[in-house]
């Protein structure tokens, strides 16, 4: 399948236009803090292997739930983060929907084939008064 590339300034993030200027989207492709790879698909592994290495490459199987509670909620809520992935679409949809409650997001996506999306996500925590308290539960856990 022909590779289709596009940059998406996420619609789910309630991102103030002033925040957009802080991000250089091309920089997202640099060394990510976390890299999620759906290892059910050889194409995902090949794609991830072609990227800059990450200190944390994590194998996933479609579902974001365990990774959100284990790691991602804290990452996007506490400090700016660069996170990349080669996953099925639902992983990214669920992640960005969860993350958008806690952080401003800039997302770049590229569909690789019918199953997989390669994505890069830059997040900046929202100011304290603009979050839901849900994340705090995870901080305590």
């Amino acid at each position: 399948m022909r590779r289709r590339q596009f940059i998406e300034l996420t619609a789910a993030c309630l991102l103030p236009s002033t925040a957009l200027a802080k991000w250089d989207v091309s920089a997202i492709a640099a060394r990510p803090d976390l890299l999620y790879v759906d290892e059910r698909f050889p194409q995902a592994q090949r794609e991830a292997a072609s990227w800059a290495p990450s200190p944390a490459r994590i194998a996933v199987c479609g579902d974001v739930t365990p990774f959100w509670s284990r790691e991602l909620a804290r990452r996007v809520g506490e400090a700016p983060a660069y996170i990349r992935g080669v996953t099925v679409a639902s992983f990214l949809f669920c992640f960005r929907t969860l993350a958008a409650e806690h952080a401003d997001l800039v997302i770049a996506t590229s569909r690789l084939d019918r199953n997989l999306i390669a994505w890069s996500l830059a997040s900046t925590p929202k100011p304290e008064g603009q979050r839901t308290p849900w994340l705090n539960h995870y901080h305590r856990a």
Partner: protein
Amino acid sequence: MAEPLPPGLTAERMSDALARFRKIVGKDWVFVDDRVASYHDPYTVPNDAGLHRAHAAVAPASSEEVQALVKVANELHVPLWTVSRGKNFAYGGAAPVLSGSVVLDLSRLNRILEVNEKFGYALVEPGVSYFDLYQYIKDRGLKLWIDVPDPGWGSVVGNALDHGVGYTPYGDHFGMQCGMEVVLANGEVVRTGMGALPGNNTWQLFKYGFGPYVDGLFSQSNFGIVTKMGIWLMSEPAGYRPYLITFPREEDIEQVVEIVRPLRLNNVLQNAATIRSLVLDAALFTTKSQYYPGKGPIPDSVAKQIMADQEIGMWNFCGALYGPPAITDVLWSTTRDAFASIPGVKFYFPEDRKRRPDILIHRADTMRGIPKLTEFGFLNWNGGGGHVGFSPVSPITGQDAIRQWRMVSGRVREHGFDYMGLMAVGFRELHHVTVIVYDQNDPAERQKLDELFRLMVREAAAEGYGEYRTHIHYMDTIAGTYGWNDNALMKMHQRIKDALDPNGILSPGKSGIWPRHLREAKKA
């Protein structure tokens, strides 16, 4: 694309309303222009991009702010589309029926006001998600379980109000609600049931109070804004044993459901168990192209391969036993014996399942009230990601089950989709929920989906089957099928609407209920 205005409202008046909204909630909590995008339906069905688009959104943080907003909206005739958390994605998300509405986003009303372990209930605001409530209980080590629908990020209040279902013995969510606080369209606050008695200590214990029971008026409706709700919680049982029973043929559904009915009526089946189709279960963990490169529904040979690989059947009955072993052992032997007569049936407990991920291991969490997002996996089946639920209700009989399955699966497959359905076993009824997964980026596929959906609604209604819940795009259509005695029920809804909300500002079009001025405009 400029965000639309509602019918009859000028840009100046809307601008005035938004300015006054900002004074009430603060400028950060009124969303316009590009910040409204998060209130659009991410899985939009119609090809007309002008439908179901909010003009703006406002997010209050308290009941008092809701009251103040409603008063302004009433004065200026601004329609407010209320959402609790706006995560009801198979049914439209946060998007309004009426374009130009201002979304009243209650997600900041997110306080867990009380969790009572002794009596087994919680009192929560509409912004509280299942994740929130679960974590709250876990953090405090309370011996309580919540009941969750498939997506754990939804609102406890919103799901109950929309008649959502879960999978523990407390799976009928609206049935488990007890006591509400409601802001009416005129800004007045009402407490229902025992909550109307000053100084009471039974608001979350006894539903009915004195006089007419009105809580149902605020479910799937637009008669008021629920800002607090009690929900009963299950005491942690002395034992828990989930199980999976698989059946090899699609036609087995008739016999399965005949067996289910007496088990359910006698409480041998304790929970809201589900009978799930092959592709629905397989799609959580695999994709179509991993098995079948062709277009259209998968052929039988591929279905058999998936069954073998995933150790599942054409139908998969996920249930659970709750209580001490002395009780659950008896319930299990009764259940197993009842199903044993079906040729090819297989029985599994979690320890029998070696594959990971696995459907029983996943459902075992859900049936004990652990919130997750795993079910979104089925969106990947065909790559396109859009989905809509078609959800007719039937009696728990084999005859009804197989008739519904033939009607729906036949039409779904004729239109080129795979059948992905489940039958959830209620106290006396089956919810037959079919998710249709379509390519949301393909206008032709969306058009095909729309035609299919409307056809299925007509055919189901002709057989006496009605939907219990629907996407915002089909609310008028479904409401139109409940037309007994010259639409007497809808006429009553309209009279209530006109009495409680004479300016028609609350969620116009919800469940097909339109305020007087918009009904008259439609006729003209």
